Protein backbone atom coordinates (compact mmCIF):
# COMPACT_ATOMS: atom_id res chain seq x y z
CA UNK A 1 0.00 0.00 0.00
CA UNK A 2 2.70 2.41 1.05
CA UNK A 3 4.72 1.47 -1.97
CA UNK A 4 1.82 2.08 -4.26
CA UNK A 5 1.19 5.47 -2.72
CA UNK A 6 4.85 6.33 -3.10
CA UNK A 7 4.73 5.32 -6.74
CA UNK A 8 1.70 7.44 -7.36
CA UNK A 9 3.43 10.29 -5.62
CA UNK A 10 6.54 9.94 -7.73
CA UNK A 11 4.63 9.61 -10.96
CA UNK A 12 2.37 12.51 -10.23
CA UNK A 13 5.21 14.76 -9.13
CA UNK A 14 7.14 13.98 -12.30
CA UNK A 15 3.99 14.63 -14.24
CA UNK A 16 3.31 17.92 -12.55
CA UNK A 17 6.90 19.01 -13.03
CA UNK A 18 6.54 18.32 -16.72
CA UNK A 19 3.29 20.20 -16.97
CA UNK A 20 3.96 22.94 -14.48
CA UNK A 21 5.54 25.44 -16.87
CA UNK A 22 2.27 25.59 -18.79
CA UNK A 23 0.47 27.05 -15.80
CA UNK A 24 1.02 30.58 -14.77
CA UNK A 25 1.01 32.41 -11.51
CA UNK A 26 -2.70 32.76 -10.85
CA UNK A 27 -3.38 29.07 -11.05
CA UNK A 28 -0.63 28.30 -8.57
CA UNK A 29 -2.40 30.33 -5.94
CA UNK A 30 -4.92 27.52 -5.71
CA UNK A 31 -2.15 25.23 -4.41
CA UNK A 32 -3.12 23.59 -1.14
CA UNK A 33 -6.63 24.99 -1.19
CA UNK A 34 -9.75 22.89 -0.94
CA UNK A 35 -13.47 23.46 -1.14
CA UNK A 36 -16.22 24.34 -3.53
CA UNK A 37 -16.90 27.39 -5.63
CA UNK A 38 -20.53 27.66 -6.73
CA UNK A 39 -21.19 29.72 -9.81
CA UNK A 40 -24.55 30.53 -11.38
CA UNK A 41 -26.26 33.09 -13.55
CA UNK A 42 -25.37 34.63 -16.90
CA UNK A 43 -25.30 32.08 -19.67
CA UNK A 44 -22.94 34.03 -21.92
CA UNK A 45 -20.28 33.42 -19.27
CA UNK A 46 -20.69 29.67 -19.16
CA UNK A 47 -18.11 28.76 -21.78
CA UNK A 48 -15.41 30.75 -19.97
CA UNK A 49 -16.50 29.52 -16.53
CA UNK A 50 -16.42 25.91 -17.68
CA UNK A 51 -12.96 26.28 -19.16
CA UNK A 52 -11.64 28.01 -16.04
CA UNK A 53 -13.25 25.32 -13.88
CA UNK A 54 -11.65 22.64 -16.01
CA UNK A 55 -8.19 24.21 -15.67
CA UNK A 56 -8.51 24.51 -11.91
CA UNK A 57 -10.16 21.15 -11.27
CA UNK A 58 -7.75 19.22 -13.48
CA UNK A 59 -4.84 20.47 -11.49
CA UNK A 60 -6.25 20.63 -7.96
CA UNK A 61 -8.23 17.58 -6.94
CA UNK A 62 -9.60 19.07 -3.73
CA UNK A 63 -11.32 21.95 -5.45
CA UNK A 64 -14.76 21.64 -7.00
CA UNK A 65 -16.21 24.33 -9.20
CA UNK A 66 -19.90 23.97 -10.07
CA UNK A 67 -21.28 25.98 -12.95
CA UNK A 68 -24.99 26.57 -13.53
CA UNK A 69 -26.89 28.89 -15.85
CA UNK A 70 -30.23 30.47 -15.17
CA UNK A 71 -29.68 33.97 -16.49
CA UNK A 72 -28.28 37.20 -15.08
CA UNK A 73 -31.31 37.91 -12.90
CA UNK A 74 -30.92 34.56 -11.21
CA UNK A 75 -27.16 35.01 -10.80
CA UNK A 76 -27.55 38.35 -9.04
CA UNK A 77 -30.36 37.09 -6.85
CA UNK A 78 -28.63 33.87 -5.89
CA UNK A 79 -25.32 35.47 -5.00
CA UNK A 80 -27.26 38.08 -3.03
CA UNK A 81 -29.07 35.38 -1.07
CA UNK A 82 -25.83 33.52 -0.51
CA UNK A 83 -26.89 30.47 -2.48
CA UNK A 84 -23.86 30.71 -4.72
CA UNK A 85 -20.41 32.25 -4.35
CA UNK A 86 -20.29 33.99 -7.70
CA UNK A 87 -23.32 35.28 -9.55
CA UNK A 88 -22.65 36.16 -13.16
CA UNK A 89 -24.54 38.77 -15.08
CA UNK A 90 -24.47 39.89 -18.66
CA UNK A 91 -25.75 43.31 -17.63
CA UNK A 92 -24.61 45.70 -14.96
CA UNK A 93 -26.52 44.96 -11.75
CA UNK A 94 -29.09 47.68 -11.04
CA UNK A 95 -28.23 50.22 -8.34
CA UNK A 96 -30.96 48.85 -6.06
CA UNK A 97 -29.58 45.34 -6.49
CA UNK A 98 -26.08 46.52 -5.65
CA UNK A 99 -27.31 48.29 -2.58
CA UNK A 100 -29.63 45.55 -1.37
CA UNK A 101 -27.06 42.79 -1.62
CA UNK A 102 -23.86 44.82 -1.21
CA UNK A 103 -22.65 43.44 -4.50
CA UNK A 104 -19.08 43.77 -5.70
CA UNK A 105 -18.89 43.73 -9.45
CA UNK A 106 -16.00 42.41 -11.49
CA UNK A 107 -16.16 43.14 -15.19
CA UNK A 108 -13.68 40.83 -16.86
CA UNK A 109 -14.72 41.03 -20.51
CA UNK A 110 -16.70 43.01 -23.07
CA UNK A 111 -19.29 41.34 -25.21
CA UNK A 112 -21.86 42.39 -27.75
CA UNK A 113 -25.39 41.21 -28.40
CA UNK A 114 -26.08 40.51 -32.05
CA UNK A 115 -29.02 39.41 -34.15
CA UNK A 116 -28.54 36.02 -35.78
CA UNK A 117 -30.33 33.97 -38.40
CA UNK A 118 -29.76 30.56 -39.89
CA UNK A 119 -26.85 30.54 -42.39
CA UNK A 120 -29.26 29.35 -45.10
CA UNK A 121 -31.23 32.59 -44.76
CA UNK A 122 -30.56 35.16 -47.49
CA UNK A 123 -31.67 38.04 -45.31
CA UNK A 124 -28.54 39.01 -43.43
CA UNK A 125 -28.95 42.73 -43.12
CA UNK A 126 -31.76 44.66 -41.44
CA UNK A 127 -32.58 48.17 -40.40
CA UNK A 128 -33.46 48.86 -36.81
CA UNK A 129 -37.08 49.50 -37.73
CA UNK A 130 -37.33 46.22 -39.60
CA UNK A 131 -35.87 44.49 -36.56
CA UNK A 132 -38.46 46.07 -34.28
CA UNK A 133 -41.25 45.06 -36.63
CA UNK A 134 -39.99 41.48 -36.77
CA UNK A 135 -39.79 41.14 -33.02
CA UNK A 136 -43.16 42.78 -32.42
CA UNK A 137 -44.72 40.51 -35.02
CA UNK A 138 -45.65 43.23 -37.56
CA UNK A 139 -43.42 41.62 -40.17
CA UNK A 140 -44.09 37.92 -39.99
CA UNK A 141 -42.83 36.48 -43.27
CA UNK A 142 -39.33 36.36 -44.68
CA UNK A 143 -40.66 37.13 -48.17
CA UNK A 144 -41.39 40.70 -47.06
CA UNK A 145 -37.67 41.13 -46.49
CA UNK A 146 -36.61 39.45 -49.72
CA UNK A 147 -36.17 35.98 -48.27
CA UNK A 148 -38.03 32.71 -48.78
CA UNK A 149 -41.79 32.60 -48.46
CA UNK A 150 -42.07 31.20 -44.97
CA UNK A 151 -43.24 32.52 -41.65
CA UNK A 152 -40.57 34.03 -39.42
CA UNK A 153 -39.94 32.22 -36.17
CA UNK A 154 -38.84 34.66 -33.48
CA UNK A 155 -36.79 33.29 -30.59
CA UNK A 156 -36.36 35.19 -27.36
CA UNK A 157 -35.14 34.77 -23.79
CA UNK A 158 -36.91 35.08 -20.45
CA UNK A 159 -36.99 38.07 -18.14
CA UNK A 160 -34.02 36.90 -16.13
CA UNK A 161 -31.72 37.13 -19.13
CA UNK A 162 -29.17 39.92 -19.21
CA UNK A 163 -28.76 39.40 -22.93
CA UNK A 164 -32.47 40.07 -23.35
CA UNK A 165 -32.31 43.14 -21.15
CA UNK A 166 -29.45 44.63 -23.19
CA UNK A 167 -31.00 43.71 -26.53
CA UNK A 168 -34.42 45.01 -25.56
CA UNK A 169 -33.04 48.31 -24.40
CA UNK A 170 -30.40 49.00 -27.02
CA UNK A 171 -31.72 47.26 -30.14
CA UNK A 172 -35.49 47.31 -29.73
CA UNK A 173 -35.63 50.59 -27.82
CA UNK A 174 -37.88 48.83 -25.29
CA UNK A 175 -40.56 47.99 -27.81
CA UNK A 176 -42.76 44.94 -27.47
CA UNK A 177 -41.66 41.42 -28.21
CA UNK A 178 -44.47 39.32 -29.71
CA UNK A 179 -46.08 36.76 -27.43
CA UNK A 180 -45.69 34.24 -30.22
CA UNK A 181 -41.92 34.25 -29.76
CA UNK A 182 -40.39 30.94 -28.76
CA UNK A 183 -38.41 30.86 -25.54
CA UNK A 184 -34.95 29.41 -25.05
CA UNK A 185 -33.18 29.28 -21.69
CA UNK A 186 -29.62 30.40 -22.54
CA UNK A 187 -27.23 31.84 -25.10
CA UNK A 188 -26.08 28.34 -25.96
CA UNK A 189 -29.66 27.23 -26.51
CA UNK A 190 -30.35 30.29 -28.67
CA UNK A 191 -27.42 29.46 -30.94
CA UNK A 192 -28.47 25.81 -31.20
CA UNK A 193 -32.08 26.75 -31.93
CA UNK A 194 -31.15 29.21 -34.68
CA UNK A 195 -28.66 26.75 -36.19
CA UNK A 196 -31.40 24.11 -36.43
CA UNK A 197 -34.24 26.28 -37.70
CA UNK A 198 -33.87 27.76 -41.21
CA UNK A 199 -36.61 30.33 -40.59
CA UNK A 200 -35.44 31.54 -37.21
CA UNK A 201 -34.27 34.89 -35.94
CA UNK A 202 -32.89 35.56 -32.50
CA UNK A 203 -30.23 37.42 -30.56
CA UNK A 204 -27.15 36.02 -28.96
CA UNK A 205 -23.93 37.02 -27.26
CA UNK A 206 -21.33 37.92 -29.92
CA UNK A 207 -18.88 35.64 -28.14
CA UNK A 208 -21.17 32.69 -28.83
CA UNK A 209 -21.44 33.25 -32.57
CA UNK A 210 -19.79 30.71 -34.82
CA UNK A 211 -20.23 29.30 -38.32
CA UNK A 212 -23.48 27.54 -37.41
CA UNK A 213 -25.33 30.85 -37.28
CA UNK A 214 -25.16 33.96 -39.48
CA UNK A 215 -24.80 37.40 -37.88
CA UNK A 216 -27.23 40.00 -39.18
CA UNK A 217 -25.88 43.48 -39.93
CA UNK A 218 -27.93 46.10 -38.13
CA UNK A 219 -28.11 49.39 -40.04
CA UNK A 220 -25.10 48.20 -41.99
CA UNK A 221 -22.89 47.22 -39.05
CA UNK A 222 -22.21 43.53 -38.58
CA UNK A 223 -21.99 42.31 -34.98
CA UNK A 224 -18.41 41.08 -34.86
CA UNK A 225 -15.80 41.19 -32.18
CA UNK A 226 -13.86 43.85 -34.10
CA UNK A 227 -16.88 46.11 -34.56
CA UNK A 228 -17.72 45.83 -30.89
CA UNK A 229 -14.13 46.62 -29.99
CA UNK A 230 -13.97 49.65 -32.25
CA UNK A 231 -17.26 50.90 -30.85
CA UNK A 232 -18.95 50.88 -34.26
CA UNK A 233 -21.41 48.23 -33.16
CA UNK A 234 -23.39 49.82 -30.38
CA UNK A 235 -25.14 46.94 -28.68
CA UNK A 236 -22.33 46.06 -26.33
CA UNK A 237 -22.19 45.13 -22.67
CA UNK A 238 -19.77 44.02 -20.02
CA UNK A 239 -19.64 40.52 -18.61
CA UNK A 240 -19.74 40.72 -14.84
CA UNK A 241 -18.96 38.29 -12.08
CA UNK A 242 -20.55 39.51 -8.87
CA UNK A 243 -19.86 38.60 -5.28
CA UNK A 244 -21.65 39.49 -2.07
CA UNK A 245 -19.36 42.06 -0.42
CA UNK A 246 -15.62 41.63 -0.92
CA UNK A 247 -14.66 38.17 -2.11
CA UNK A 248 -12.36 36.04 -0.01
CA UNK A 249 -10.80 32.60 -0.05
CA UNK A 250 -11.39 30.46 -3.09
CA UNK A 251 -13.84 32.95 -4.55
CA UNK A 252 -11.19 35.66 -4.53
CA UNK A 253 -8.69 33.31 -6.14
CA UNK A 254 -11.19 32.49 -8.84
CA UNK A 255 -11.86 36.17 -9.57
CA UNK A 256 -8.12 36.78 -9.66
CA UNK A 257 -7.76 33.92 -12.05
CA UNK A 258 -10.30 35.49 -14.40
CA UNK A 259 -8.22 38.67 -14.47
CA UNK A 260 -4.87 36.88 -14.82
CA UNK A 261 -3.29 36.55 -18.22
CA UNK A 262 -4.53 32.97 -18.52
CA UNK A 263 -8.03 33.89 -17.50
CA UNK A 264 -8.10 36.72 -19.98
CA UNK A 265 -6.73 34.37 -22.62
CA UNK A 266 -9.63 32.00 -22.01
CA UNK A 267 -12.04 34.93 -22.43
CA UNK A 268 -10.39 35.81 -25.75
CA UNK A 269 -10.46 32.19 -26.93
CA UNK A 270 -14.15 31.93 -26.14
CA UNK A 271 -14.89 34.95 -28.29
CA UNK A 272 -15.00 37.87 -25.86
CA UNK A 273 -12.95 41.04 -25.55
CA UNK A 274 -10.69 40.83 -22.50
CA UNK A 275 -10.55 43.94 -20.35
CA UNK A 276 -6.79 43.80 -19.87
Amino acid sequence: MKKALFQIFVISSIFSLLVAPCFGEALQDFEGQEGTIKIAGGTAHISVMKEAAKQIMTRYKDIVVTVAGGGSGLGIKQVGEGLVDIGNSGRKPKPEEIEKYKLKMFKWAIDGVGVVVNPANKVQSLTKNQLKDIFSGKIDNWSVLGGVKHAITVYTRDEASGTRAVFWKKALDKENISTKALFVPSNGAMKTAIANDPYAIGYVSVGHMDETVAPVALDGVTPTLDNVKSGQYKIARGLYSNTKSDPSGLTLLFINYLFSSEGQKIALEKGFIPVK
Partner: protein
Amino acid sequence: MSNTKEIIARNVFFLSAIASAVMILAILVLMIALGIPLFKAGNFLAIWTGPWAPHKGLYGIWPMISGTLWIALLATALCMPLSLGASFVITSLGGPRLRRMLGTMVRFMTGIPTVIYGFVGIFLLVPLVREGIGGPGMCVLTAGMVLAILISPTMILFVTDSLLAVDLSYVQAAKALGANRVQRLLYVMVPRATGGMAAGIILALGRALGDTLIALMLAGNAIQAPRALLEPARTLTAHVALVKAADFDSLEFRSIFACGIVLYLFATTATVAVRVMLRKREVPT
Protein backbone atom coordinates in the same frame (compact mmCIF):
# COMPACT_ATOMS: atom_id res chain seq x y z
CA MET B 1 -41.94 -7.50 26.93
CA SER B 2 -42.94 -8.58 23.48
CA ASN B 3 -46.09 -6.63 24.07
CA THR B 4 -44.16 -3.36 24.22
CA LYS B 5 -42.39 -4.34 21.03
CA GLU B 6 -45.72 -4.92 19.42
CA ILE B 7 -46.93 -1.51 20.43
CA ILE B 8 -43.75 0.20 19.34
CA ALA B 9 -43.82 -1.56 15.98
CA ARG B 10 -47.44 -0.73 15.47
CA ASN B 11 -46.78 2.92 16.18
CA VAL B 12 -43.75 3.03 13.92
CA PHE B 13 -45.80 1.64 11.06
CA PHE B 14 -48.63 4.02 11.79
CA LEU B 15 -46.36 7.04 12.05
CA SER B 16 -44.70 6.18 8.74
CA ALA B 17 -48.06 6.12 7.09
CA ILE B 18 -49.03 9.41 8.73
CA ALA B 19 -45.71 10.99 7.77
CA SER B 20 -46.04 10.08 4.12
CA ALA B 21 -49.65 11.16 4.07
CA VAL B 22 -48.87 14.49 5.70
CA MET B 23 -46.44 15.19 2.84
CA ILE B 24 -49.34 15.38 0.44
CA LEU B 25 -51.10 18.03 2.45
CA ALA B 26 -47.85 19.81 3.26
CA ILE B 27 -47.15 20.27 -0.42
CA LEU B 28 -50.51 21.92 -1.02
CA VAL B 29 -50.34 24.07 2.10
CA LEU B 30 -46.82 25.24 1.29
CA MET B 31 -47.78 26.25 -2.20
CA ILE B 32 -50.81 28.19 -1.05
CA ALA B 33 -48.76 29.86 1.68
CA LEU B 34 -46.04 30.89 -0.74
CA GLY B 35 -48.56 32.04 -3.30
CA ILE B 36 -50.35 34.35 -0.86
CA PRO B 37 -48.36 37.52 -1.71
CA LEU B 38 -49.48 37.13 -5.30
CA PHE B 39 -53.11 36.63 -4.39
CA LYS B 40 -53.03 39.67 -2.16
CA ALA B 41 -51.17 41.85 -4.61
CA GLY B 42 -53.80 42.41 -7.20
CA ASN B 43 -56.93 41.27 -8.82
CA PHE B 44 -57.37 37.67 -7.69
CA LEU B 45 -59.27 36.73 -10.81
CA ALA B 46 -56.63 38.21 -13.11
CA ILE B 47 -54.08 35.68 -11.89
CA TRP B 48 -56.09 32.84 -13.36
CA THR B 49 -57.58 34.49 -16.42
CA GLY B 50 -55.22 37.32 -17.33
CA PRO B 51 -52.25 37.51 -19.71
CA TRP B 52 -48.60 37.15 -18.75
CA ALA B 53 -46.59 40.32 -19.19
CA PRO B 54 -44.14 40.76 -16.31
CA HIS B 55 -42.75 44.07 -17.57
CA LYS B 56 -46.26 45.51 -17.33
CA GLY B 57 -46.86 43.94 -13.93
CA LEU B 58 -49.31 41.38 -15.26
CA TYR B 59 -48.81 37.90 -13.91
CA GLY B 60 -51.81 36.01 -15.26
CA ILE B 61 -51.27 32.33 -15.88
CA TRP B 62 -54.17 31.87 -18.29
CA PRO B 63 -51.86 31.35 -21.31
CA MET B 64 -50.21 28.48 -19.44
CA ILE B 65 -53.48 26.92 -18.31
CA SER B 66 -54.71 27.10 -21.87
CA GLY B 67 -51.43 25.67 -23.23
CA THR B 68 -51.60 22.80 -20.75
CA LEU B 69 -55.18 21.96 -21.72
CA TRP B 70 -54.47 22.15 -25.46
CA ILE B 71 -51.46 19.89 -25.31
CA ALA B 72 -52.85 17.39 -22.80
CA LEU B 73 -56.23 17.08 -24.51
CA LEU B 74 -54.62 16.70 -27.93
CA ALA B 75 -52.27 14.04 -26.58
CA THR B 76 -55.15 12.15 -24.99
CA ALA B 77 -57.24 12.41 -28.15
CA LEU B 78 -54.36 11.08 -30.26
CA CYS B 79 -53.56 8.42 -27.71
CA MET B 80 -57.11 7.05 -27.45
CA PRO B 81 -57.41 5.34 -30.84
CA LEU B 82 -53.83 4.05 -30.57
CA SER B 83 -54.38 2.60 -27.13
CA LEU B 84 -57.86 1.23 -27.69
CA GLY B 85 -56.68 -0.41 -30.91
CA ALA B 86 -53.64 -1.93 -29.26
CA SER B 87 -55.71 -3.08 -26.27
CA PHE B 88 -58.22 -4.80 -28.55
CA VAL B 89 -55.41 -6.63 -30.32
CA ILE B 90 -53.77 -7.58 -27.02
CA THR B 91 -56.98 -8.83 -25.40
CA SER B 92 -58.77 -10.57 -28.25
CA LEU B 93 -57.77 -10.00 -31.83
CA GLY B 94 -54.14 -11.14 -31.80
CA GLY B 95 -52.81 -14.66 -31.54
CA PRO B 96 -51.19 -15.80 -28.28
CA ARG B 97 -47.62 -15.07 -29.38
CA LEU B 98 -48.42 -11.66 -30.72
CA ARG B 99 -50.29 -10.80 -27.55
CA ARG B 100 -47.30 -11.72 -25.45
CA MET B 101 -44.97 -9.73 -27.64
CA LEU B 102 -47.18 -6.67 -27.59
CA GLY B 103 -47.57 -6.98 -23.84
CA THR B 104 -43.81 -7.00 -23.40
CA MET B 105 -43.47 -4.07 -25.78
CA VAL B 106 -45.96 -2.00 -23.83
CA ARG B 107 -44.27 -2.78 -20.52
CA PHE B 108 -40.92 -1.90 -22.07
CA MET B 109 -42.42 1.44 -23.13
CA THR B 110 -43.28 2.29 -19.53
CA GLY B 111 -39.55 2.26 -18.83
CA ILE B 112 -38.52 4.73 -21.54
CA PRO B 113 -37.41 7.96 -19.85
CA THR B 114 -39.42 11.04 -20.80
CA VAL B 115 -36.36 13.10 -21.53
CA ILE B 116 -35.33 10.66 -24.26
CA TYR B 117 -38.68 11.03 -26.01
CA GLY B 118 -38.08 14.76 -25.89
CA PHE B 119 -34.55 14.43 -27.21
CA VAL B 120 -35.60 12.36 -30.21
CA GLY B 121 -38.60 14.65 -30.70
CA ILE B 122 -36.38 17.72 -31.04
CA PHE B 123 -34.09 16.26 -33.65
CA LEU B 124 -36.47 13.99 -35.54
CA LEU B 125 -40.01 15.30 -35.27
CA VAL B 126 -39.58 19.07 -35.00
CA PRO B 127 -37.89 19.48 -38.42
CA LEU B 128 -40.43 17.10 -39.98
CA VAL B 129 -43.36 19.13 -38.68
CA ARG B 130 -41.70 22.42 -39.63
CA GLU B 131 -40.97 21.38 -43.22
CA GLY B 132 -43.90 19.06 -43.75
CA ILE B 133 -46.80 20.87 -42.11
CA GLY B 134 -45.48 24.35 -41.45
CA GLY B 135 -45.21 26.70 -38.51
CA PRO B 136 -42.22 26.92 -36.20
CA GLY B 137 -41.96 23.17 -35.65
CA MET B 138 -42.02 23.56 -31.90
CA CYS B 139 -45.75 23.66 -31.35
CA VAL B 140 -48.81 22.15 -29.71
CA LEU B 141 -49.01 19.46 -32.39
CA THR B 142 -45.44 18.21 -31.99
CA ALA B 143 -45.64 18.08 -28.22
CA GLY B 144 -49.08 16.46 -28.39
CA MET B 145 -47.89 13.71 -30.71
CA VAL B 146 -44.89 12.77 -28.60
CA LEU B 147 -46.93 12.99 -25.43
CA ALA B 148 -49.53 10.66 -26.98
CA ILE B 149 -46.86 7.98 -27.40
CA LEU B 150 -45.56 8.66 -23.90
CA ILE B 151 -48.92 8.13 -22.19
CA SER B 152 -50.06 5.25 -24.38
CA PRO B 153 -48.67 2.46 -22.15
CA THR B 154 -50.65 3.84 -19.19
CA MET B 155 -53.85 3.73 -21.17
CA ILE B 156 -53.14 0.37 -22.81
CA LEU B 157 -52.25 -1.40 -19.57
CA PHE B 158 -55.29 -0.02 -17.86
CA VAL B 159 -57.76 -0.72 -20.65
CA THR B 160 -56.33 -4.19 -21.20
CA ASP B 161 -56.71 -4.92 -17.51
CA SER B 162 -60.33 -3.86 -17.39
CA LEU B 163 -61.20 -5.80 -20.55
CA LEU B 164 -59.59 -8.95 -19.18
CA ALA B 165 -61.32 -8.49 -15.85
CA VAL B 166 -64.77 -8.94 -17.40
CA ASP B 167 -66.40 -11.96 -15.86
CA LEU B 168 -65.44 -14.97 -17.94
CA SER B 169 -68.93 -16.49 -17.71
CA TYR B 170 -70.37 -13.66 -19.85
CA VAL B 171 -67.72 -14.20 -22.46
CA GLN B 172 -68.24 -17.94 -22.48
CA ALA B 173 -72.01 -17.54 -22.69
CA ALA B 174 -71.55 -15.31 -25.72
CA LYS B 175 -69.19 -17.88 -27.20
CA ALA B 176 -71.77 -20.60 -26.69
CA LEU B 177 -74.33 -18.46 -28.48
CA GLY B 178 -72.03 -18.42 -31.48
CA ALA B 179 -70.46 -14.97 -31.14
CA ASN B 180 -67.02 -14.76 -32.73
CA ARG B 181 -63.99 -13.10 -31.14
CA VAL B 182 -64.75 -9.68 -32.50
CA GLN B 183 -68.37 -9.83 -31.43
CA ARG B 184 -67.45 -11.04 -27.97
CA LEU B 185 -65.05 -8.13 -27.64
CA LEU B 186 -67.38 -5.45 -28.96
CA TYR B 187 -70.70 -6.54 -27.48
CA VAL B 188 -69.71 -8.35 -24.30
CA MET B 189 -66.35 -7.18 -23.02
CA VAL B 190 -66.28 -3.49 -24.02
CA PRO B 191 -69.74 -2.58 -22.62
CA ARG B 192 -68.84 -4.23 -19.31
CA ALA B 193 -65.47 -2.55 -19.08
CA THR B 194 -66.46 1.03 -19.88
CA GLY B 195 -65.87 2.21 -16.32
CA GLY B 196 -62.33 0.84 -16.28
CA MET B 197 -61.63 2.09 -19.77
CA ALA B 198 -62.80 5.59 -18.93
CA ALA B 199 -60.65 5.47 -15.81
CA GLY B 200 -57.65 4.53 -17.95
CA ILE B 201 -58.27 7.43 -20.29
CA ILE B 202 -58.54 9.87 -17.41
CA LEU B 203 -55.42 8.47 -15.79
CA ALA B 204 -53.53 8.99 -19.05
CA LEU B 205 -54.94 12.51 -19.29
CA GLY B 206 -53.65 13.13 -15.77
CA ARG B 207 -50.19 12.05 -16.83
CA ALA B 208 -50.34 14.29 -19.88
CA LEU B 209 -51.38 17.27 -17.75
CA GLY B 210 -48.54 16.69 -15.35
CA ASP B 211 -45.73 16.03 -17.78
CA THR B 212 -43.01 18.66 -17.88
CA LEU B 213 -40.23 17.68 -20.19
CA ILE B 214 -42.08 17.03 -23.44
CA ALA B 215 -43.76 20.42 -23.52
CA LEU B 216 -40.66 22.16 -22.23
CA MET B 217 -38.54 20.67 -24.99
CA LEU B 218 -41.03 20.57 -27.87
CA ALA B 219 -43.78 23.14 -27.49
CA GLY B 220 -41.69 26.31 -27.86
CA ASN B 221 -42.73 27.87 -24.52
CA ALA B 222 -44.25 31.01 -26.05
CA ILE B 223 -46.35 33.03 -23.65
CA GLN B 224 -49.65 33.06 -25.46
CA ALA B 225 -52.82 31.05 -25.32
CA PRO B 226 -52.54 28.93 -28.48
CA ARG B 227 -55.30 29.17 -31.05
CA ALA B 228 -54.12 26.54 -33.49
CA LEU B 229 -52.23 23.26 -33.44
CA LEU B 230 -49.22 24.77 -35.19
CA GLU B 231 -48.77 27.55 -32.68
CA PRO B 232 -46.23 27.36 -29.89
CA ALA B 233 -47.46 27.15 -26.30
CA ARG B 234 -46.22 26.98 -22.74
CA THR B 235 -47.63 24.57 -20.21
CA LEU B 236 -47.97 25.19 -16.48
CA THR B 237 -45.27 22.63 -15.83
CA ALA B 238 -42.85 24.20 -18.30
CA HIS B 239 -43.61 27.60 -16.79
CA VAL B 240 -42.60 26.34 -13.35
CA ALA B 241 -39.38 24.96 -14.81
CA LEU B 242 -38.57 28.20 -16.65
CA VAL B 243 -39.49 30.89 -14.18
CA LYS B 244 -37.38 29.45 -11.39
CA ALA B 245 -34.88 31.76 -12.96
CA ALA B 246 -36.55 34.85 -11.59
CA ASP B 247 -36.33 36.69 -8.32
CA PHE B 248 -37.61 34.72 -5.27
CA ASP B 249 -39.48 37.65 -3.79
CA SER B 250 -40.94 38.90 -7.02
CA LEU B 251 -44.56 38.38 -7.93
CA GLU B 252 -43.30 36.80 -11.11
CA PHE B 253 -41.73 34.04 -9.08
CA ARG B 254 -44.79 33.73 -6.85
CA SER B 255 -46.89 33.03 -9.92
CA ILE B 256 -45.33 29.61 -10.24
CA PHE B 257 -47.03 28.65 -7.00
CA ALA B 258 -50.33 29.51 -8.63
CA CYS B 259 -49.27 27.15 -11.42
CA GLY B 260 -48.42 24.52 -8.84
CA ILE B 261 -51.84 24.86 -7.22
CA VAL B 262 -53.62 24.49 -10.55
CA LEU B 263 -51.54 21.44 -11.42
CA TYR B 264 -52.23 19.95 -8.01
CA LEU B 265 -55.95 20.46 -8.49
CA PHE B 266 -55.89 19.01 -12.02
CA ALA B 267 -54.04 15.93 -10.79
CA THR B 268 -56.24 15.43 -7.76
CA THR B 269 -59.41 15.80 -9.80
CA ALA B 270 -58.15 13.19 -12.24
CA THR B 271 -57.26 10.81 -9.40
CA VAL B 272 -60.61 11.22 -7.69
CA ALA B 273 -62.44 10.76 -10.99
CA VAL B 274 -60.56 7.53 -11.61
CA ARG B 275 -61.44 6.23 -8.15
CA VAL B 276 -65.08 7.09 -8.56
CA MET B 277 -65.24 5.34 -11.90
CA LEU B 278 -63.53 2.25 -10.58
CA ARG B 279 -65.88 2.06 -7.67
CA LYS B 280 -68.81 2.13 -10.05
CA ARG B 281 -67.50 -0.86 -11.89
CA GLU B 282 -65.16 -2.61 -9.51
CA VAL B 283 -62.38 -4.45 -11.31
CA PRO B 284 -61.10 -7.36 -9.26
CA THR B 285 -57.36 -7.30 -8.76
